């Protein structure tokens, strides 16, 4: 069962501003039945160009309904310039947080708002100008890049949690990885990290430290469970390993890799280590 905050539960059980405004100033629609969630947002402005009334209709899970409800409460009374600045983080924070796997619900809210504002201004935010990276859920490179930037995402899994991209057939994972890398490079240029938390290692020092950490902290624990692990290669911050013994067919090996091996290497070597499994 999901751990939803009281605020999420409240907005799910008693959603605010449900409905559709007749003759609205702006309409934004995202999602579809096939995708498993969808949101239709309509708003009306007052004489001062502030959002006087806003309503939503949502098909989806509890957090999708709660996110939509929260969005309408947040933007009511705002000018469009103010509303434009609302991020999915604002929606999630308003709700006292969402489970990470459900962050895409808050992103759906932000996207519908963006479309509704564009609709009012007579602009087109068509998907045609952008590449649809994830064909299963129809997510474009622009949407993925925006989610990575706004939420400081680092992995494909996180991108899936936030945008659904990559949650289906998984064929687009390399493309998503490339987008993450590109956006993160841009972000680094814009705001170089204030201070490196661990002292910079030379490549040789890093490789040695990884080997030592694997041997001391990780392999003995895996062996205790009948498993084992081989270090295959190191490329920059990426550490490629192969799981052996019982680990190789353990259904929770993915968890082992991320929550155990990667966590240990981050702790002892460097915060930016990413562990990847090499399959035979």
């Amino acid at each position, binding site marked *: 069962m999901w751990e939803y905050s009281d605020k999420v539960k409240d907005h799910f059980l008693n959603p605010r501003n449900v409905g*559709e405004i007749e003759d609205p100033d702006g309409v934004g629609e995202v999602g579809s*039945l096939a995708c*498993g969630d969808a949101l239709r947002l309509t708003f009306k402005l007052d004489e001062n160009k502030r959002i006087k009334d806003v309503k939503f*209709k949502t*098909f*989806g*899970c509890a957090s999708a309904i709660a996110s939509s409800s929260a969005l309408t409460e947040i933007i009511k009374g705002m000018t469009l310039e103010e509303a434009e600045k609302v991020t999915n983080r604002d929606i999630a924070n308003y709700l006292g947080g969402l489970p990470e796997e459900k962050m895409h619900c808050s992103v759906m809210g932000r996207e519908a708002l963006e479309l509704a504002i564009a609709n009012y201004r007579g602009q087109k935010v068509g998907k045609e100008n952008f590449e649809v990276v994830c064909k*299963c*859920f129809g997510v474009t490179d622009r949407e993925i890049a925006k989610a990575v930037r706004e939420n400081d995402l680092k992995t494909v899994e996180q991108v899936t949690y936030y945008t659904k991209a990559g949650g289906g057939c998984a064929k687009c994972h390399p493309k998503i990885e490339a987008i993450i890398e590109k956006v993160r490079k841009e972000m680094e240029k814009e705001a170089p990290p204030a201070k490196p938390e661990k002292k910079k290692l030379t490549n040789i020092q890093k490789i040695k430290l990884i080997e030592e950490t694997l041997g001391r902290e990780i392999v003995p624990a895996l062996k205790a469970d009948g498993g084992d692990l081989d270090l295959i290669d190191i490329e920059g911050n990426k550490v490629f390993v192969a799981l052996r013994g019982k680990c190789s067919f353990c259904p929770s090996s993915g968890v082992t890799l991320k929550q155990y091996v990667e966590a240990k290497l981050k702790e002892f070597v460097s915060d930016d280590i990413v562990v990847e499994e090499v399959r035979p």
Partner: protein
Amino acid sequence: MKIVYVDNNATTKVAPEVVEAMMPYFSELYGNPSSMHFFGGQVQRKVNEAREQVADFLGADPSEIVFTSCGTESDNAAIFGTLDSYPEKRHFITTRVEHPAVGNVCTYLARKGYRVTELSVDREGRLDLDELRESITKDTALVSIMYANNETGVIFPIEEIGQIVKAEGIPFHTDAVQAAGKIPLNMKNSTVDMLSISGHKLHAPKGIGVLYIRKGTRFSPFIIGGHQEKGRRGGTENVPYIIGLGKACELAKKNLDEERTRVRALRDYLEKGILERIPNTLLNGDRENRLPNTLNVSFEYVEGESILLLLSDLGICASSGSACTSGSLEPSHVLRAMGVPFTAAHGSIRFSLSIYNTKEEMDYIIEHLPPIIQKLRDISPFWKDYLKSQKKE
């Protein structure tokens, strides 16, 4: 809060008689069945008795019963234990609607270079036996097909399948985790070589399972260790749980008629109540060949997790094939394999009953479900669109 538990395909209440049977074997009769002294010996006799109870329930010989830790272990042991015995054969046949305990083993096998055939199902969740016939080759090491589906309750014609498989001399395994206790199982004149059951689906506790292995079936142990279970599964016997499962099997045998009559009647009553009161509701799965306790329905234009949470708020515990409940983004692989349309797949709810359910509980669900679906449809953008499209026609 009132609790109406209708999620018995997920897990069941441990029967009070089972708890009672188990209790002495924790801190009083705690001996190891393998020990030479009387203190272990008396425990061994009880384990043997439990083995006989399970064998009696399955129409098997006690020597064909291997205790495991769960249904998943039984499935894994059957598959890996057989493939290991036929190392020269590299083809495995199963279905697209198996439980992950078999389904994810297939993914693993495919990665290891096995050729895996996953048989398709039709809109009602039924297999095409011609597809099975055409899939069998000289290279086929094992066929594993579930007895009944956990999500829809659809029962496969296991003996008919077994005849096809055995005619080719190929070992046949079935995951009967959902069938056991709900429909009669008799291994005596069966074509099944191996069959998995799980304790916690039939009112025994979690953490105990059985793999039935027909005499003469080639099998390599999956868990290698001591001589326990005649060398077919190492590890000191989980004595209290084995005794609990023995008792549960004895009860299940007695209660089988009730499952097939009273529980079925309750399920049919619930099904009728829901279908009559809620428009745009579809029944998922073969209505005829279905477990007597299982009801899987889809409510169009609403999403399953939302339904479950609103039900849960009223104390009603059910389950859904919706993507959102599992943390994955795609709806149930079973419903997708059946080709359930997207308008309905996300809004599927499974009710699974047991002998502990009452008619009053069904009335409670029938009373509270329609306003829940209506509330969510009022929030859903697609419901209004659908109503509009109906008016035009």
